């Protein structure tokens, strides 16, 4: 997958959760006449659901990504403090 494709996937996963939650909250408010309580609560839950979606998508992409070649890894210099 291209970089832009990955970015678009992440963005749509996050935005969709927020939009759906807010719309659901506004609908519940309209039904019960409790503006704006449900919208606020569901907006916050929507953010959480969006983050959950993004972490799941990222975990899936990491699982599908090819393993790095161990020969090409640069050894880490352990003593990198400034003393």
């Amino acid at each position, binding site marked *: 997958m291209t970089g832009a*494709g990955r970015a678009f996937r992440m963005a*749509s996963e996050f935005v969709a*959760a927020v939009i759906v939650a807010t719309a659901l909250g506004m609908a519940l408010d309209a039904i019960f006449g409790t503006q704006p309580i449900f919208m606020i609560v569901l907006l916050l839950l929507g953010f959480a*659901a969006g983050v959950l979606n993004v972490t*799941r998508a990222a975990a899936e992409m990491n699982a599908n990504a090819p393993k790095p070649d161990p020969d090409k890894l640069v050894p880490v210099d352990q003593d990198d403090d400034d003393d």
Partner: protein
Amino acid sequence: MAGTDPISQFKIYDLFSFGTIGGDADGNGGFELVFTNSSLLMLITVSVISFYLILSTRGRGLVPSRLQLVSEMSYEFIANMVRSTAGNEGMKFFPFVFSLFSFILISNMIGLFPYILTISSHIIITVALALLVMTIVIVYGVMKNGFGFLKMFVPSGIPLPVLFIVVPIEVLSFLSRPLSLSLRLFGNMLAGAIVVKVFSGFMVMLIPLGALGILGAILPLGMTIALTGLEFLVGALQAFVFTILTCVYLNDAINPGH
């Protein structure tokens, strides 16, 4: 000037009407069933797929011809994808997944022809496809697992008090799937179609400037060619992404509970 408006390509116009359902005698109200240019393109897409697959596999050669090879490779490609994401039980959804993939792929490719609408650049098409996927996931999940389908929203190994927060989040995450699925396909195809049209519109606008304009039009021409190549990639990639996410969601219906 003709052809410089990047939005006019998305226009839907009626080709013929099947008649009106409901409404009063004066022709007010009611629901008119109309065959539009989008319907025509969907019909063409389905015919192209059907004719290609039927004609190319007609020979049933043990050593496949080149055309038959493409059909067999597309079968193998989707079958491996379904098996690896949804398991062997997911193979009962293979006809659905294959139809979805070929429909999106071929309609995106047909939409690359100049003057032809990309049907997946209308959100109603992508939403209909995504809702079809989610309906199948929910109906099959409930049919197979009964109330066990709801285990999908309850991750294992979580203490009871935390569940009061986690379950609504999981439910919202599930509800957001059809929207993200449809928004992604719609957004990519819409943006691609507009960008190609904008750059090709620059050429038409530059030509009245005389010799200098014609010389300058080479730059947007190069951009248009490059973007058309990119659109091939994006169209195929979005068909692939839509299909693989369908498989992932079907896997949730087959094995609920993480």
